């Protein structure tokens, strides 16, 4: 090919989606692949606190000791395999339970004549909004037994029954609490899929004489399969990296999980060992991701909302209707209202552990600084505490900025991935945009800090800046937004855009006048999850916030560490309220739907 031909070819292919894909791949390469590479490298390096167990080594030396220690040493069972088994049990169980609860709820709400559908489906998304440890705190408050001392658990107080250890602590409550926290994922995704099933598919099967069960098995299941896998992937990965709940609920019965090991080693300045654990977690997540993609094939089977799905497929619950409604409502109220109430209550109790009415007070909210009232902290009530309010403002700022950037980036990535579908770039971008989801926050934060603390090439040191927080959060929540963006883009046929091209519209005009307006509702939905997550985020930001960029979640640590839990809980209540209000307003104003926010 001669030069003119080649330059012509290049010119022709310089369209927005190609340029965008290159830009995104480069950016994501830096913020995702490089940290990964750094992690791998560190697992082969000796670090100052590690050298004492590697005789004769100096910091910076190459070593295979960490790998040996973790996988094949005599203590490998304690250091790695047993926690791994616990983690797998937990993650798999969470995924399954979330699927069952979420899927069951989805089916009841979308496919039966259950009443109060709107109210119940709104309620079903709330558990994710609350911090995951709120559920474990509620559990302990309700179900603790004398093993852990202190005041009586509510259950024991009311019934006099002492609960067994395996119920109050360890794998059982960990699985339950985390499932109850993550089932909204399953609910939203499966409900979305069920809603989109063309009723004609089922009707024709019915006409052919298929029974309900057969229809379920042969028609509904295969269509819902991809979504079931997505749910499994999302919840399983989350289960891997979570630290707070297993630590809190597992400690009393010495249940260690991989994230405990990760945390212990990173915090103990043994990153060589710590990152190795992180790598294992990432690998497991990647494996599930791979299986997820295999199951979905080329994802051609994404059913667009053609407006055809009618309500004619509603199953009648008959006599079971009332009891089921009661059970479902009670369940949802329990998992949303109860943890929130526990949080709120703890922030209103002057003396912790004292449940009498006379002990209720707004001191931690609006009280003056005092050494004598309550826990005697000398701190003003949080609503009067300028540092807290400022941090809350920062949190909201962070939430808004992150969600907007994520939303736009997610939409652009969605555009790029779908418009270049089938090409290597498309698949690569799709995977890279999802990778951050698999990385445990604490490892991620640590590497990010190292990556951006120093000037590298044209990128200045971002140490201590708000920008660094934003970048870290954007990268972490991009998986949500890109999935939402891809999902939204898939519903817009290429011809709609081509028609605009033929009418002479440039790329920006097409985005402005055709693509964006059609994606409006999905776009705003894609903003919600990053907003909620950024407001709730702790483990990622803890290492990156500096005193000047303090956010609400991190600032509560100053209370947690001193044992002044009422303040912590009050701040968390504020955060939850802020998120709930935002979600509600956005739903009313812009018709956002959390399900679309994760690509459902």
């Amino acid at each position, binding site marked *: 090919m001669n030069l003119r*031909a080649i330059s*012509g070819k290049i010119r022709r292919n310089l369209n927005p989606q190609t340029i965008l894909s290159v830009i995104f791949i480069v950016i994501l390469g830096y913020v995702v692949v490089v940290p990964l590479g750094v992690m791998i490298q560190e697992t082969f390096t000796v670090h100052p606190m590690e050298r004492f167990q590697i005789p004769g080594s100096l910091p910076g030396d190459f070593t295979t000791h960490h790998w040996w220690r973790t996988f094949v040493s005599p203590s490998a069972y304690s250091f790695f395999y047993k926690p791994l088994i616990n983690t797998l049990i937990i993650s798999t169980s969470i995924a399954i339970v979330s699927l069952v609860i979420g899927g069951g709820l989805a089916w009841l709400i979308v496919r039966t004549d259950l009443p109060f559908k709107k109210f119940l489906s709104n309620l079903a998304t709330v558990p994710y909004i609350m911090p995951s440890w709120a559920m474990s705190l509620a559990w302990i408050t309700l179900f603790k037994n004398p093993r852990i001392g202190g005041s009586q658990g509510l259950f024991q107080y009311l019934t006099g029954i002492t609960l067994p250890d395996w119920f109050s602590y360890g794998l059982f409550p960990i699985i339950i609490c985390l499932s109850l926290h993550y089932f909204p994922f399953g609910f939203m995704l499966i409900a979305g899929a069920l809603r989109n099933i063309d009723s004609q598919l089922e009707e024709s099967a019915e006409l052919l004489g298929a029974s309900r069960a057969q229809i379920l098995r042969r028609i509904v299941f295969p269509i819902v399969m991809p979504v079931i896998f997505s749910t499994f992937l999302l919840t399983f990965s989350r289960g891997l990296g979570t630290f707070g709940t297993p630590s809190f609920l597992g400690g009393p019965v010495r249940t260690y999980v991989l994230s405990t090991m990760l945390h212990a080693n990173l915090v103990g300045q043994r990153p060589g060992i710590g990152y190795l654990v992180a790598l294992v977690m990432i690998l497991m997540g990647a494996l599930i991701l791979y299986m997820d993609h295999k199951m979905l094939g080329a994802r051609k089977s994404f059913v667009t909302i053609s407006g055809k799905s009618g309500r004619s497929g509603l199953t009648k619950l008959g006599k079971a209707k009332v009891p089921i409604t009661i059970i479902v409502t009670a369940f949802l109220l329990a998992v949303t209202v109860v943890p929130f109430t526990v949080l709120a209550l703890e922030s209103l109790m002057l003396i912790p552990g004292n449940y009498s009415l006379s002990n209720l007070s707004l001191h931690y909210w609006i009280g003056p600084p005092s050494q004598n009232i309550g826990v005697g902290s000398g701190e003003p009530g949080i609503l009067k505490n300028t540092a807290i309010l400022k941090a809350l403002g920062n949190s909201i700022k962070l939430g808004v900025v992150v969600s907007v950037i994520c939303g736009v980036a997610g939409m652009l990535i969605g555009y790029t991935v779908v418009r270049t579908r089938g090409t290597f770039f498309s698949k690569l971008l799709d995977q890279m945009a999802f990778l951050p989801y698999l990385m445990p926050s604490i490892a991620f934060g640590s590497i990010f800090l190292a990556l951006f603390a120093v000037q590298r090439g044209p990128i200045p040191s971002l140490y201590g800046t708000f920008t660094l927080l934003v970048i870290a959060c954007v990268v972490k929540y991009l998986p949500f937004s890109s999935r939402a963006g891809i999902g939204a883009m898939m519903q817009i046929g290429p*011809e709609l855009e081509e028609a605009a091209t033929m*009418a*002479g519209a440039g790329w920006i005009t097409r985005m402005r*006048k*055709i693509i964006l307006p059609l994606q409006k509702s999905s776009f705003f939905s894609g903003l919600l999850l990053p907003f909620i997550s950024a407001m709730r985020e702790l483990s990622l930001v803890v290492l990156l916030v500096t005193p000047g960029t303090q956010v609400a979640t991190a600032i509560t640590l100053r209370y947690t560490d001193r044992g002044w839990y009422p303040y912590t809980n009050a701040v968390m209540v504020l955060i939850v309220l802020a998120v709930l209000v935002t979600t509600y307003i956005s739903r009313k104003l812009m018709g956002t739907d959390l399900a679309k926010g994760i690509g459902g």
Partner: protein
Amino acid sequence: MARIVLKNITKKFGQVTAVDNLNLVIEDGSFATLLGPSGCGKTTTLRMLAGLEDPTSGEIWIGDKCVFSSEKGHYVPPGKREMGLVFQSYALWPHLNVFDNIAFGHKIAKRPAQEIKEKVFEIARVLQIHELLDRYPSELSGGQQQRVAIARVLVMKPKVLLLDEPLSNLDSKLRMDMRAELKRLHLETGSTIVYVTHDQLEALTMSSHVAVMDSGRLQQWAPPMEIYNAPANVFTADFIGNPRINLVEGVLKAGSGEELLIEAGELRLPFPKTSEAQRYLNQKVTLGLRAEDMLLSKEPQDGFFKGTVYSVLPAGSEWYVKVQLGEEVLTVTIYSDLDLRLDEPIWLGVQKNKIKCFNQNGAAISPGVHFQKEAASASEGAI
């Protein structure tokens, strides 16, 4: 001038060749149809013309401008080729009403509002959708949507109009009406039209020229009646015409005197002894007979072949009779009721100047100019 030239256009998708070395010249003002079964490359060709796909190699000229050349690196992007494309799915923007859909092109060209309004109203009136301007696409019927799609394109006064199976989503009665409308539109606007369809009747009724395509290759490029009367190969002969042409395998033999003989099944039919035809002497050939080019007689007649009635399908103004002739079953169209009964003996005759013969590679063996002219004048008389 909007004369379109496709030069050695090839399009490959990975290992698959969608369009293979296509050469086509579409004259200004003509109504060219790309006809073929699905997967033959016609839509791909259309999209390459529009600029939505880039050929793997070749050149495209519109007027005196080269809009694409793989060798010389020329390229005019879609939207700048002064072409309009009506999509098979219409691709109306669901969030804009009919007026805004049609006005879109001029709006982004920043024409003054009054001018836009006039232009939109004008075209809406022509296409009889002026009462629908406030509605949204989801509120329109299929036919209405299609007219909006056409209006959206026509309002830009393109030099070339590209239509991708625009009638396939309509019911058959509406389709007939729309065909007439489109043909009128062609005459009124005088623009060049490139039309893609798999419906051979559409191609025959509407076009000035037809490109028959199969598996990415051009089979024949000619006016409709030429394709009908003198198909270039078996594929084309089979694709065009309803009912399908009867094809019988046979051998070309030397005949008595001035003609060669085609022996196919029980048929013995003469074929002109041209120098071309003589090259295929004693080789396998395929005999092609259109249903309407044969005659039936209840009585034996000279030169007729005896067969039995296999089935009779009355179709209003004509009858489709299947006649068993030895191993073969031939379909014959007759125009008057012969009151035939199944398994009744029947005599079948063939209009000799309508016989089509194809060599063992499927290519037509030309019956000679004399033959063709006869055929042409005969069919013209028939219209």
